[in-house]
Structure formats: structure tokens, C-alpha cells
């Protein structure tokens, strides 16, 4: 845990938003597709577990649940402690695993808490705080053509009921 504020150019931040959640057919995973917030066109997919994907989807759709879900509880803790969730940053990638930090602020002090991107994003949507990816992570992501891959996924019309072709 540190209170360092990313300042050098290498760590400069680009804002993204959650564009959509894709269900991967036949696996227990979801793909969280982040899209660049400014006019530049770029998508950034993150593979997460089904439960994590569902937690993000609930927040994305602003679904009201009868009882507070886990990330609603974290937000509730923040409110009770007068802690502001300022932003989340996808700050590192090691062995194809993304690492996120949640930046929290209280009484003039900013702290960062290590988190999985799924928890960080789930919380960001509930706390209405921005989602950033560092330039460094963007530069180091997989070199395969993700946009083409996503286009292919989209063409399969994921999420629609399966229809038997006759």
C-alpha cells in the first residue's frame, strides 16, 4: 500500500468505461469490454469469472437487488467511514493477469488498495468513479488483434437465445 500519485509520463492514465459484458459460450467466464472514454476508438477486454462478470453487469444495468451485493457493501463501508473512492486504475499486467488499484481518499490522504480488476470495476460503477488504464499496461497488452477477435465474437450474437438453423 502506498500513497504515491502516478505522475511520470510512463504511468499516464487513459480513461475507459465499461462498454459491455460478453458471455463466453460453454465456459464459466465473462469478458468485460472496456472502451476508451475519449474520441479515440479502442476496446480493452478483460476475462473474469462468471460471478465477477455478473457483479459488474448488475452495476452496469443499474439493477436494484433486494439485498446489498458484496460491492454495495464495500461502498457502504466507504460511506460510513467517509472515504471517497476516487478512481480505479488497471496499473499492471504480469503473466497475462491484470492488476488494479483502488484509489481512496479521506482527510487529505490518498491511499491505494490492491485489487483484482473485476472488484475494482464493480466498485467503480457503484461509486461512479472513473476507470483508468495506464499507458504502460496498454502498451504491454497482448499483440493479437483483439478488435478483430471481438468483432468475430459479436457476429456470433452472444447473449441471444440459441436458434436451431433449419
Amino acid at each position: 500500500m502506498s500513497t504515491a500519485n502516478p505522475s511520470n509520463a510512463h504511468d499516464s492514465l487513459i480513461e475507459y468505461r465499461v462498454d459491455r459484458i460478453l458471455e463466453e459460450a460453454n465456459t464459466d467466464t465473462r469478458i468485460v469490454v472496456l472502451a476508451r472514454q475519449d474520441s479515440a476508438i479502442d476496446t480493452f477486454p478483460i476475462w473474469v469469472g462468471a460471478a465477477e462478470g455478473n457483479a459488474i453487469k448488475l452495476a452496469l444495468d443499474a439493477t436494484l437487488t433486494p439485498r446489498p451485493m458484496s460491492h454495495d457493501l464495500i461502498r457502504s463501508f466507504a460511506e460510513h467511514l467517509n472515504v471517497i473512492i476516487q478512481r480505479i486504475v488497471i496499473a499492471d499486467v504480469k503473466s497475462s493477469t491484470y492488476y488494479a488499484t483502488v484509489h481512496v481518499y479521506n482527510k487529505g490522504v490518498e491511499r491505494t488498495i490492491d485489487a483484482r480488476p473485476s472488484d475494482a470495476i464493480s466498485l467503480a460503477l457503484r461509486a461512479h468513479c472513473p476507470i483508468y488504464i495506464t499507458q504502460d499496461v496498454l502498451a504491454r497488452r497482448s499483440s493479437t488483434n483483439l478488435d478483430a477477435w471481438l468483432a468475430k465474437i459479436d457476429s456470433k450474437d452472444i447473449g441471444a437465445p440459441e436458434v436451431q438453423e433449419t
Partner: protein
Amino acid sequence: MITQMHIKGLMFDPYNNAYIVVLRDEEESEMLPIWVGKSEAGAISMAMENVTPPRPMTHDFMKSFLDAYNAKVISVVITDLSEHTYFAKIHLMYEDSEYTVDARPSDAIALALRCNAPVFANDTVITKQSSEELEQWLENLKPEDFGKLDS
């Protein structure tokens, strides 16, 4: 009145495709089963088995958040049961003040296990659960329905 409960185990409920967290009191005279979802059961089971995942799971992150502010989980209380949904309260100590936060029992238990905080249940909740229907249901459970965590 509240009674301290111990988390005895987790078992799979094949009829409802859900998991049951089994709580018992000190004398093991009372039992409180709580139905939870698969991911919630996973969060509880990891804490019971003292598994340290490579990355912080949701409740590990929740604890990190509280630790960052030196907020302590004093206790959690399973407070109410209505329409088959349990309600819980998490009691926090932060800067000499106590805070009570509304939560689902699954989150409260998953957090309590990580913070070594005691779990209590309102006596009204325990009474409500000692129904014949439940006992019968438990009697009909086959040994293979019990997970390895059950003691």
C-alpha cells in the same frame, strides 16, 4: 437475545442447486442453516480452509479496505429472516465510534472469518428455523450430499 454461532460446515443442496452454511451454537443444541449461492459459498469456504489465493478475492479486498482505515470488524449478527432471506449486521469500530452496516449473511460471514470476528444470531432467527420441514429435509440428505468441509 443473541447467541454466538460457529460455522460448522458447508454443504451442497442438490434440490435447490445452492449451498448451505451450517451454523451451530456452542453446545451444538441449535442449528442455523443459511442458503447461499455458489460464489458466496466459495468465498466462505476459502476462508474456512485458510486458502490464500494468488490475488485478493472480493472479501480479501473488503478486508484490505477496512484495514487501510484501521476499521475493525467487532462482530456480525444474523438479525432477521423474512421471505427466506436473511439479514445481517456488521458491527465496525472506527476511530472510537461504532458503526452498524447492513449486509447479506454470506458477506458478513465471509468477512467475519477473515477478520476472526465472532458471528452471532438473533434467537428469533434460530427459533424460526427449527421447523419440522427443515429437520426432515436434513434427515433425507444422503452422505454424498455433504461436502468435505462438513464436520
